[in-house]
Every structure is written in structure tokens, then in C-alpha cells.
């Protein structure tokens, strides 16, 4: 196998509280290969989002990276200065968060928001931004004629697709998706994630997919890591983690998910 795109090594993240430091991420290590879809599963508070923030160096006080390395192509992101960091964020690592659809500026037309990102990171002209935005809209299945609309004129699912489109416009190598569809209903969720799968295959980026929904993760990812109280308790191929989980907690997590009665699932298969 080629050298992994991202290597997380012994990552420790603390939250400083009145009662001293609370270790939210404890010696976590994992790799994400090029073109790999890697999932991090776990309940609220297990540290999975904290890892996402640490990778993008967005962890802010009271969070504090206490140790470890985060290597992107061998380069330690934790040691980069602000200027070098700006070249990595968005350009090499894109981010889509749960409430991302609310991160669009309500006062700006969508086209201008594409231009904002493309101009800032690539120095693109208005014409080039427009062409790129049209191409990206096509990719995520929204008519280019709607580029002049404001965010509130789109549905929640469309807004989330727009954020993914803006994120992909800079052709990042890694996209971090933290609960990207949790606020949406199941049909829209499936529409978006099927598109992500296709885009991934065509563009070749890697994905760090974070969710508490193991079922969804198993439909999407190649490999899965399961977090419990800041520790990575199990990492493995999707088939192994779903059919033959090694850790007791992984088994519990599977058992706790509401699912359709078996008879209905058979009828659908």
C-alpha cells in the first residue's frame, strides 16, 4: 500500500477546566489512505469531533492539543505556522460540519460565496470563479441558473450540497465530514451521500466521515474506527467491524440502533 495521506499518531487533546485538564482524546492513532473513506463512530462526547478540530487546527481554548503528531503527506500539521496552515486549510483539507448549511452567509448570493473562497485561496477572477461554481453545481446536481440565489432560497439538503460543492471547488485531498447529514431526513441524506461516493470515485479525495450512526457509516466507509471515552477501541475493515466486532462496546453500539423489522428489510433487499 502507498504511504497513507493522513497519519494521526498518539494524539492527545485536553480540555482545561476549573478542576484541571480533562483528556478528551487519549493516544489516538489511525491512518487514512489516499482515496479511502474512513469512518469514526461513537456517541456524543467520545472525542470524535475533537479529533476533527485537532486535524484542522481549529481546536480553540479551552481545548488544547497535549501531544502527538498529525502528518499530512509526512508533514506535521501541529507544527505549521499560521501562514503555512492557511495553505493547507480548504486547499488540501476541506471541512463539512453538521450545521454547515447554516454557515453560508445569508446576505450573499451563492455565486459570491464561491468567489470568496476561490479568490482567497487561488486568486481566481470573477469569470473563473463563475465557471468553476457552475461546474461544481452540476456535480452536486443543482442547476447552474440558481447560482444567483441567496441561501434561504434553497432547501436544507441543497444548502448542505452547496457547502460540499464549495469545499470540493478547491480539489482538496482530504474532506472531513462531521455528521454532514444528521439534520436532514433519510431520503435527502441518501441523495447527498450517494453523490459523495460518486464524487469521491471521480475525484479521488480521501474522506474522514464522523457520525454516531453506525448503519450509515457501514454503507459508506471502507474502514471504521470506534471511539469510547476518548479512546479508539477498535479499528478495522467495514466488514469485520460490522459482522465480527471485536470490542464489547462496538457490539453494544450495533445493538442499540433502532432498525426496521427484519421482515421489512428482507422485502427491500
Amino acid at each position, binding site marked *: 500500500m502507498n504511504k497513507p495521506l493522513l497519519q494521526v499518531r498518539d494524539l492527545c487533546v485536553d480540555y482545561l477546566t476549573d478542576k484541571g485538564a480533562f483528556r478528551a482524546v487519549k493516544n489516538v492513532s489511525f491512518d487514512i489512505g489516499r482515496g479511502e473513506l474512513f469512518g469514526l463512530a461513537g*456517541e*456524543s*462526547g467520545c472525542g470524535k469531533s475533537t479529533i476533527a478540530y485537532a486535524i484542522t487546527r481549529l481546536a480553540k481554548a479551552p481545548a488544547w492539543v497535549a501531544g502527538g503528531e498529525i502528518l499530512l503527506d509526512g508533514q506535521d500539521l501541529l507544527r505549521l505556522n499560521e501562514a503555512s496552515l492557511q495553505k493547507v486549510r480548504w486547499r488540501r483539507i476541506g471541512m463539512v460540519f453538521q450545521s454547515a448549511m447554516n454557515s453560508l452567509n445569508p446576505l450573499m448570493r451563492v455565486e459570491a460565496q464561491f468567489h470568496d473562497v476561490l479568490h482567497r485561496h487561488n486568486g481566481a477572477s470573477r469569470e473563473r470563479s463563475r465557471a468553476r461554481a457552475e461546474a461544481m453545481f452540476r456535480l452536486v*446536481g443543482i442547476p447552474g441558473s440558481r447560482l444567483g440565489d441567496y441561501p434561504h432560497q434553497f*432547501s*436544507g439538503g441543497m444548502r448542505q450540497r452547496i457547502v460540499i460543492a464549495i469545499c470540493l471547488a478547491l480539489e482538496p485531498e482530504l474532506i472531513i465530514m462531521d455528521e454532514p447529514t444528521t439534520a*436532514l*431526513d*433519510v*431520503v*435527502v*441524506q*441518501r*441523495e447527498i*451521500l*450517494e*453523490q459523495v*461516493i*460518486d464524487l*469521491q*470515485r471521480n475525484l479521488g479525495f480521501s474522506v474522514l466521515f464522523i457520525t*454516531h*450512526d*453506525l*448503519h*450509515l457509516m*457501514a*454503507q*459508506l466507509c471502507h474502514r471504521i474506527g470506534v471511539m469510547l471515552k476518548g479512546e479508539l477501541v477498535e479499528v478495522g475493515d*467495514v466488514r469485520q467491524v*460490522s459482522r465480527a466486532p471485536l470490542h464489547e462496546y462496538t457490539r*453494544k*453500539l450495533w445493538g*442499540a*440502533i*433502532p*432498525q*426496521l*423489522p427484519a*421482515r*421489512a*428489510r428482507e*422485502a*427491500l*433487499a
Partner: protein
Amino acid sequence: MNALPSLAVAAETEPVIRLDAIERSFGQVKALRGISLGLRPGRALALVGESGCGKTTCARIIARMDQPTSGKLTFRGRDATAAGTAGEERAYRRAVQMVFQDPFASLNPVFTVHHHLARPLALHGHAKGKAALAGGVAELLAGVGLDPEVTAHKFPHELSGGQRQRVNIARALAVQPDVLVADEPTSMLDVSIRLGILELLARIKREKNLALLYITHDIATAAHVAEEIIVMFAGQMVEWGATTAVIADPRHPYTQLLLSAVPDPDRPFVPGDSARFLKHAEEVRRISRPASAEVEQVAQDHFVRALGAAS
């Protein structure tokens, strides 16, 4: 005329609340088109559909936070469509309680759990005096699976999302309602604690003989709580009946789409399929949207609306 859900199964029990041909329009937008349903003691009805399908508008009308444009709302056999006397309104609100989606926003951050539960107990005259209130609060907390000793004096921020939702349910129960309307009570909670909340709702429904209206976009959770289900799309009931019948043999294309989109670990996404699925979903939405008055009875307790002609 629409068949009233649960006619077949529980026709012998009179609904506490009954909606007949309820319509609600916001300007040009028809949010509800001909909703008819009955909420019966000891039974749970799930209202399932995507964002914007009208399910929350329906809940708001039942909770009297909104008025229908036309149609009839019956409460304990009395026409309650228009606001009644002050006494009737109070009785209605006491009988119908709601649990909302956001467990974080629905508790007051400056008050303890004890305060949240003692107030409705005192206001509705279910407990008088310090000792009785403390006893009532403890009983409510134990009833929703929380340890009264540990929880009563905590503030909302000291509780997890699941614990807060349990407090919200306890608060609704403090009023001793006949009907509980739960609007997406688990969608902001972790998958792993959803089952616990669903089981709690099912248990209190049984023990207190409550009529439960469970609103969700997640048809898989609906199957866990509700004996009856209504699938809504664009303000219309497109398919309804006994949950087991609807889920095992979905007839309406929108119900089929909804079921096919439930995450299933044994059916991984296939690369190259997105264009087909998007086109399919769009087509299903398009054909499901037009109004239609034609309803087919599939089985004794299973109804489906025929597709309407495109306007």
C-alpha cells in the same frame, strides 16, 4: 371520504382527539390537505414524512398552537375547532401535552429539574405543600428512569441530551395528560440512546393509557413505538394503517422510497448509482405531489392514496 386511521383496529374505543378533513393554508401554500385521524387511549400513532410535509403543522393544530383553515377537530366528542370558553381551553391544554425536538432549548437553564417538575404539579393542583411536591417530583423522575436523589437538584446543563429529554417527558406527564404529542423527540439524540427514549414512550403510553402522537422523519423508529402509522407527503396522507402492514407491504411510491433510504449496513452504497437514485427520488416526489381524493383499501387495516393527476 377518507378512512380514519385505526378504524379497523380500535373502532370500539372513542378517540380522545379526532381530526376530520383538516386543511391548513399559508397564503398559496397548502400545508395540510384533508388530514383525518383519531388519537385513542393506550395507542400510538406515528406521523412520518420529510421536512416540510406538514407533520409539525398537524401537531401544532392538535396542541392548539395553530388553527386549521377548514375541517373539524373533535375533543372528547365535542367540536373543539374554534376556541371554547376559558374553562374548556384549560381542560384541553391540560389534556394535551407536547415534547419537543430540542432537549437543550426546551428547559430553562436557570432553574433546577425540581423546579421544572414541581411547577406543573402545583399549577394543576396535583400536589400541595413542600413534602407532597418533593414526593411528586421524585415519582415523576423515577417514572422516566432517572434517579430522583441525583437528578432533582441538577440544572439542565448538568444533564446529557437523553436525560434532558427524559425530564421533558416527565414535565409533560406532571400535568397528567390524556394525549402526548412528541415531535421528533429523538432526532437530536445519539442513535445509541434513541431506543431508550422510544421504549420509555411506549411504556408510559401503556401504563398511563395515553394516546401518543409520535412525529418523525425516521420510519425505522416509528416501527418501534407506534401500532399505527400515517405517511405524509406534501400535506397529504399518502399511506396509512397498521404499522406492520404498511412497513411489510408498502404500496405508495413515496413510502417505498422512504423505506429504501433507511440506513442498512448490509446494503452498502454502490458507486455510480447517485444519478439514478437522485432521478428516482425526484420522480417519486413529482408524482406524489398532486392532490388526489381516491383512496384504495389494501387490507383491513391498510390504506393507500392513488396518485393524483398532475395539475
